[in-house]
């Protein structure tokens, strides 16, 4: 993918425009560099997308290249929870609890149609949560049923891009930024 295509969504970078004090921005830059380059996922998969997540970690796609291979089984040590698969009513409280157990800063990637919107299980079923964003806040949505490993990598790279815009300064209102 070309760099230009990767950055076709420019709204994110708008947040950076507001400027700031040189000390704070330098510290921000270091912190964001560290955080965005070390996203450790939680070993958590509910269904089919989990297999593609495994494939993304395996030899061909190897997302260790981005330093993401340190799968932590304990939520305390994980940075990102990749919700790979359907979330049902019985699982939702558990997922919420897992998210709460993670230590800040924490991020969520909704992987696959089920996690994004309920996907193939949207209609006529009694037990499916239609989109994981009903339970926990989502940073990046990766559509597909299941998404290819490349798609997950793309999602992770977008998350890195998002993390790079974090700041310690007090947040401004969106209107202010878009002006």
């Amino acid at each position: 993918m070309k760099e230009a295509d990767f950055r076709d969504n420019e709204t994110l970078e708008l947040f950076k425009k507001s400027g700031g004090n040189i000390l704070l921005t330098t510290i921000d830059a270091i912190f964001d560099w560290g955080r965005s380059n070390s996203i450790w996922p939680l070993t958590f998969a509910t269904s089919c997308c989990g297999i593609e997540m495994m494939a993304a970690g395996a030899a061909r796609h190897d997302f260790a290249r981005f330093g993401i291979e340190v799968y932590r089984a304990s939520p305390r040590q994980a940075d990102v929870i990749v919700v790979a698969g359907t979330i049902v009513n019985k699982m939702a409280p558990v997922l919420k609890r897992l998210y709460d157990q993670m230590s800040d800063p924490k991020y969520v990637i909704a992987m696959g149609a089920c996690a994004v919107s309920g996907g193939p299980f949207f209609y006529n079923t009694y037990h499916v949560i239609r989109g994981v964003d009903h339970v926990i806040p989502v940073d990046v949505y990766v559509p597909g049923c299941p998404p290819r490993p490349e798609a997950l990598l793309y999602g992770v790279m977008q998350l890195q891009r998002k993390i790079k815009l974090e700041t310690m300064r007090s947040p401004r209102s969106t209107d202010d930024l878009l002006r």
Partner: protein
Amino acid sequence: MKEVVNLPVKNIEEEEYHINMGPQHPSTHGVLRLVVSLQGEIVKSLKPHCGYIHRGIEKMCEKDTYPQIIHLTDRMDYLSAHINNHAVCMLVEKALEVEVPERVKYIRTIIDELNRIASHQLWWCSFGMDMGGLTCFFYGLRDREKILDIFEESFGSRLLHSYYTPGGLMMDIHPNFQKSVKDFIVYFRKKIKDYDDLLTGNIIMQERTKGVGILSKEDAVSYGVTGPSGRGSGFSCDVRKNHPYGVYDKVEFNEILMHEGDTFARYMVRMHEMHESMKIIEQLIDNIPAGDYSVKMKAVLKLPAGEYFQRVEAARGELGVYVLSDGNKTPFRMKFRSPNFSNLSALDHISRGGKIADLVAIGGSLDYVIPDIDR
């Protein structure tokens, strides 16, 4: 004066220690929850709690047409997606009394077996990982990618294909299909030796699996443990042999049976099955007859009123599909007899008395796929 209360004295030896394995746990392969009672490291009993991925597929089927249902079966046991599709397609074909062309049968059989190899490769990865050998994971997935390449070339998808339709196939195979499959067989014959070198022959692995988690033949039958897990106990339950479908009656292959019933036997059955599957593919790949890849079906499929049942051998055991039709385009009741559901019921029985590490190894050898248990 205050009354002296005699607190009940608990015997520490008898006290049990309960731990929750799951729903998020690396060794439950998904969102299964096992409540394990321990005494020290020894498993006294365990209770599986399912339903953390119960999506109500059977209810959805009652509102869906048969071609739609095929897409749902993909998502049950996603590692043998083709085989699940095969079951529903054959059931519809049987109900409508449609005879599919020989070409379709050949292609379906070949792809089923490729799917079985891919599934067993992934099982090997996760089994190795459960045992603590992390490198297995990468070796298995490396070779699995080759099969996924073949799938992708022919029908454009990696994991969930929905390639079979009632009456045939979605599209014809890619012109390269035969060549790539043959290349893969040559490649994998070489690579499967790595598997044996890395894990099968390892002393630690053998010590940890031999004599662990023994399931007798009687119990296997009674619990309905089918597939490689049942055959590791000597239960001859291969649907491909007992009730042949596709072109399994035209090929030579062995039903792998081992009689030890322990974790190692279940492991070895799967390792041998990969060889058998390659044997089946080799017999078929050069003989795919020419012809149509599908027969003309009606636009709306309505099954005649009645009951239908179709059994196939999925990668993890016997998949049964039961349909009660009232003559409409949607089934009145559809039930999937999923192999993992029955296999899981035996977990409590066979892991009692073992250590926690044994429980993990046994779970790996039963190779459950949670969405298939919960449906």
